[in-house]
């Protein structure tokens, strides 16, 4: 079969991209939980090994990944509320776009409150 050139990407609007972002963040959170359950359950096997693993997380790269994880969770949580409102609030579908902007606003506010403290901890400015 000869290769056909690619078609174009479907140009969906806010609703489609919020769905994509919800999927991606959900996927990331799932993998975090997988690792999280694995490393936490390690404490029952050997507390020393647990300490080594947790200690390995204490570096700037993991610190930034943690910031990304929190951002993903915050978006997934607020957008999850939006999705529920779309389904259960009779005017939800009409205001889905407005609600998405509110979700993004709440993500920015939450991250603005979280990031300074977190980055201080990661890069050693705080304590």
């Amino acid at each position, binding site marked *: *079969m*000869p*290769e*056909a*050139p690619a*078609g*174009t*990407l*479907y*140009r*969906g*609007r*806010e*609703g*489609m991209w919020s*769905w994509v972002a919800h999927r991606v963040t959900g996927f990331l959170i799932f993998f975090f939980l997988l690792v999280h359950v694995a490393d936490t359950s390690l404490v029952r096997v050997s507390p020393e090994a647990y300490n080594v693993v947790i200690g390995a997380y204490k570096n700037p790269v993991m610190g930034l990944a943690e910031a990304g994880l929190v951002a993903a969770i915050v978006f997934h949580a607020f957008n999850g509320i939006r*999705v529920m409102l*779309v*389904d*259960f609030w*009779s005017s*939800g*579908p*009409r205001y*889905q776009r407005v609600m998405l902007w509110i979700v993004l606003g709440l993500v920015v506010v939450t991250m603005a409150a979280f990031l300074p403290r977190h980055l201080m901890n990661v890069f050693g400015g705080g304590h």
Partner: protein
Amino acid sequence: MTAVLENSAAPDATPEVGAVPSFDVTLRIRRFNPEASEAAAYWEEFTVTAYGTDRVLDAMHKIKWEVDGSLTFRRSCAHGICGSDAMRINGRNRLACKALLKDLDPSKPITIEPIKGLPVVKDLVVDMEPFFASYREIMPFLITSGNAPSAERLQSAEQRERYDDTTKCILCAACTSACPVFWNDGQYFGPAAIVNAHRFIFDSRDEGAEQRLEILNDKEGVWRCRTVFNCTEACPRGIEVTKAIQEVKRAMITRAF
């Protein structure tokens, strides 16, 4: 028009008063010939002269009638009623007969592809059978019991209003083929079938709501909807498709208890 009369009196007058401006437009069409020795889709560009009042379908007619007669697409009424010329124009599902060229920025090539998620038969023609199979499955006809009344079945204006939005569907498949869930899972009923189920579920004269809800309360039914809203954006009739799906979901929950 009076402008025409004035022009015929003075044929050399330029520019023509009241004339519709013309411009060259390039259509980049995704083509597929199943009979070719190496059957693979490819892109082909056509440049034609069009007018400010032309729709994408007019430009495609010009190509088919004057440039390349092998270009294949569906169209019947060409006035946005029959729903046969849904295609992906500049990445979005629209009716070629409703999309004005001048609204699509004709300075750049306009890309035209078949709608996604259904098998391509040739060029822009897709096999609509899976789409219509889902439509038939939700029983898109009035279901009643007992003897038929001797007069018409009466309904108040409010009762009619309840499902007015979903009566507008022309079955063009723009919504269903805009749905990412449908692209990945052809078993999903798709927005159009649910819209047409909604049209009967909320009709006070109909008594088949329970059966239809039962059919759509399937793994591949309304619960597959991820509220992506591509269907609502794509509907050339302006039906609030996602809202209709959501109302069916809620009816399923509220009528079950």
